[in-house]
């Protein structure tokens, strides 16, 4: 039923799009028809595929590194009250700096290659992952911690056996947000300066008034983001099921 709903929603969107093209009479370099975009996507499939691969790599690397840094920071904040006191205000302050504004600087520092885009994705997801996981690690049922204390539990063992498993659903929520943000970070990095990637191809197509190719790139990017979000959503569900002791 959900698959049918999705199919119906896509069809409806295509109908609205086609209707807009017909009603407005806009030229194809302003608003190409769905059919024209589909043709462009087919004829440029190799070009789009090559560039999509670069963007996917940037997104996945950014997601992996951002998650690792975020998890490590959240653990450190939980283990050390001093670290929490010193680092939390800094973390909040860094969020006041728009990450997009850093993109030119990152390109200057890390070059036109993949590095600057990965760093951009890392920066954009670092805070959501850190914040969500840290919340999960600290907002835990006091009863568990009281019990652990009466049992003579050690701090590291309590972290390993109680806090981390209990915080997995919160980490899952952070990862779901990260899966949406990471592609934005990578593409904005490509817009500022790149020689490969979907963001680069979009700019190139735009400059040559190949709006249909630009639309094809956009749709490819949206599909990638939806697939990534679904996969991370499945992982988040598994984490949540594990923490709740639901056996499937």
């Amino acid at each position, binding site marked *: 039923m959900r698959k049918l709903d999705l199919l119906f929603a896509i069809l409806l969107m295509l109908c609205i799009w086609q209707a807009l093209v017909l009603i407005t009479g806009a030229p194809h370099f302003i608003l190409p028809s769905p059919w024209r975009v589909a043709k462009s996507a087919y004829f440029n499939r190799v070009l789009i595929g090559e560039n999509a691969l670069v963007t996917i790599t940037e997104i996945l690397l950014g997601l992996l590194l951002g998650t690792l840094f975020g998890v490590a920071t959240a653990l450190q904040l939980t283990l050390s009250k001093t670290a929490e006191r010193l680092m939390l205000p800094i973390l909040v302050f860094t969020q006041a700096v728009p990450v997009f504004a850093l993109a030119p600087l990152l390109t200057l520092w890390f070059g036109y290659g993949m590095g600057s885009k990965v760093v951009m994705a890392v920066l954009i997801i670092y805070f959501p992952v850190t914040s969500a996981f840290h919340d999960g690690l600290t907002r835990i049922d006091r*009863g568990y911690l009281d019990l652990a204390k009466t*049992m003579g539990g*050690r701090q590291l*063992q*309590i972290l390993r056996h109680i806090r981390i498993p209990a915080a997995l659903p919160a980490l899952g929520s952070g990862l779901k947000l990260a899966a949406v943000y990471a592609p934005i970070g990578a593409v904005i990095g490509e817009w500022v300066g790149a020689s490969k990637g979907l963001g680069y191809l979009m700019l190139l197509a735009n400059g040559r008034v190949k709006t249909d190719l630009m639309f094809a790139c956009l749709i490819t990017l949206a599909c990638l983001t939806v697939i990534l979000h679904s996969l991370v959503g499945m992982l988040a569900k598994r984490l949540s099921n594990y923490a709740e*002791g*639901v056996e499937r």
Partner: protein
Amino acid sequence: MSPSPEIMFKGCFFIENKQLFDASFVMPAGQWTCLLGPSGVGKSTILRLLLGLKTGGHFKGEISTSDGQSIAGQISYMAQSDLLLPWLSVVENLMVGASLRGDTHDEERAMMLLDRVGLSDHGHKKPAALSGGMRQRAALARTLMEDRPIVLLDEPFSALDAGTRADMQELSAELLTGKTVLLVTHDPAEASRVADQILVMNKTGMVVWPAPELPAIRAVDAPETLLCQSKLLAHLRALAA
């Protein structure tokens, strides 16, 4: 396990310089003491003080044991909520104390204790797959697994239905024999059944209420149990009025 010691508690508890209670009592070695009283008089605070947990106030007094050893490390605890970790199996939950201390696991003993509480067929299930009564039995087995001479129980059976509660009282009385037990409860019937000593706490202090002369655990319908229960209930109602 070392022999269960007697526990002496004497002191005042303050919250922002306002005295919450001034209490003095003795928990006899190897016996059940039941602590009752209206909500807010400080029963759970006494329990937390004995457990060495944070209380949000200031305690001025002394908690000591007859063997002269520190009370910390001699206590195990069972709460109203079973506090079973949902991601661990029942048998892993029994061994969680060893995991938290970094000790080796004794799975054989855990399985033996599960057998004693009638859960030997459920050791590898997750807590979510158990009923409320079964979960409390697992929590009792976890308390026994710690093998401490002093056991503190904070309304552990209050969320159970009447029949399961009576079963759990009997099982606990049997399995905790010889340990020094403090049971915080709101239920006069429960105290009348299981207590060797009954303490009633109110805003002015603490009184020792006469427990039935029959040895614990007493039958639910024994005249002594019923008489103690009705008098205790009347007293608690008068305190609350």
